[in-house]
């Protein structure tokens, strides 16, 4: 594990450089444990890391790094299976043909591969309601678009690398858009204001409308 300052009141603890469900489970458990400490203002689990904001009146980088190492050495609690969300998708995204051409896959095959797994929510972040889902099947892995779109419609279902995601708000985006869903991910009047939480499980299914 690498623990390094992220400015004078935060640090970044990197558990691994691998996209791995077990490591993500450990990162989430570590963030949850750290949040309970009174000298920690916020702990955010990444894919394989925890970003910790601390109260500089009551902690130092050294004291927190020691605490993180202690907590990480503990056996993580048995992860409860996250809530399962079934997400209907109309697979008519503007990039689905190009994705098919580049990967030499028919539209039906793309749908079959994309709807096959149960994805894990590795991390909720970036913009309100965005969730990083994975792992995506190797057969669908493509680098991001060379030129990101300046505006992606909310509800767009997208893929990039070994990940999938759904745009919760109209934002710029560089992922390949293969479909759309009517499910709302950003729920500004709920608390928490998003449908997915880290550790949740997602199953896509194909629908015509």
């Amino acid at each position, binding site marked *: 594990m*690498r623990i*390094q*300052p*992220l*400015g*004078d*009141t*935060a640090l*970044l603890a*990197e558990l691994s*450089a*691998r*996209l791995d469900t077990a490591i993500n489970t450990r990162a989430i458990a570590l963030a949850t444990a750290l949040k309970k400490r009174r000298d920690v*203002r*916020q702990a*955010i*689990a*990444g*894919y*394989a*890391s*925890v*970003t910790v*904001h601390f109260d*500089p009146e009551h902690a130092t*980088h050294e004291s927190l790094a020691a605490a993180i190492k202690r907590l990480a050495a503990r056996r993580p609690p048995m992860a409860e299976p996250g809530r399962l969300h079934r997400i209907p998708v109309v697979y008519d995204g503007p990039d689905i043909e190009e994705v098919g051409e580049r990967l030499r896959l028919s539209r039906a095959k793309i749908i079959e591969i994309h709807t096959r797994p149960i994805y894990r929510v590795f*991390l*909720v*972040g*970036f*913009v*309100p*309601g*965005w*969730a*990083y889902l994975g792992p995506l099947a190797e057969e669908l892995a493509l680098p991001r678009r060379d030129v990101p779109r300046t505006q992606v419609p909310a509800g767009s279902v997208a893929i990039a690398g070994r990940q999938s995601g759904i745009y*919760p*708000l109209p934002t710029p985006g560089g992922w390949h858009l293969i479909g759309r869903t009517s499910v709302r991910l*950003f729920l*500004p009047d709920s*608390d*928490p*204001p*998003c449908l997915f*939480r*880290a550790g949740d499980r997602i199953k896509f299914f194909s629908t015509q409308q």
Partner: protein
Amino acid sequence: MTPTLHVENPGVLTTVQDLGRPNAVSAGVQAGGAMDRFAHSAANLLVGNDPGVATLECTVSGPTLLADERCLIAIAGADFDPRVNGAAMPSWTSLVLEPGDRLTFAGRRSGARVYIAIAGGFEGDRWLGSQSTNLMAGRGGMHGRPLKAGDTLNAMGEARKSALAGRHMPEPLRPAYSDHTLHAIAGPHLKRLDPESRRLLFQVSYKVGLHSDRMGYRLDGPQLVAAGGELLSFGLTVGVVQLPPSGQPILLMADHPTAGGYPIVACVVSASLPIAAQLLPGDELRLADITLERAQKMRQTLAAALDVL
């Protein structure tokens, strides 16, 4: 009766801000809050408020506000030449508006953001624990949007402590706003830079790019080159300097995305964030490499200056 200010002219971009919503980041919602927390907090303290209550953050130009009741206000941060009924007024000083008084700003002389505090704090929609305006989500503050002409602003009630007009924060206690040097410590991924880029990072001067706002500043300067690809996304924090593949660094500010996967090459220290908050596109800045120990001393010095108020 609680004092009300009528917005006759909102200025270019005036939003309600407090110290943000750090607990919302696990939902991907930006922590947000005042860009210049020193000026925001000082303005509050000058009128007897807790530092965390809502102020108005006025970007590039100030609003025109008409008071209908007697109220105590303070203006801090940038210098937009504040006036009451046309007469010049000092910044960083508490002052009384009488019924019918009109607060205006004659024009920007320095800095980017002015903070206006009112005794009791401004009322605003509370969303996920904060009154800060989140423009992307359209929530918080004045119904999730900038102020517009015709809005009315209410004070929340009484200040925590009674305060008088004429309380002042002397200049030596404030951040050195005129020196556009942002102190920074090494970022966790600094070693990914090639030796030439590592040398340049803390030597050259950058220009704040055109597409710079509350989310972050693009730093125009020499192209920096980092080895290795994108990282697995991790939680970000205000002040970090990330390096996308374009080689143009981005300094993340108050409304930054909560997570990302670009290498972090430097972290602007908390004592320099108020100075960063007062920069506008076109302004020049330098990143100066300091130790963590010095960063902590600088933070303590600014915190002590606010404690005096």
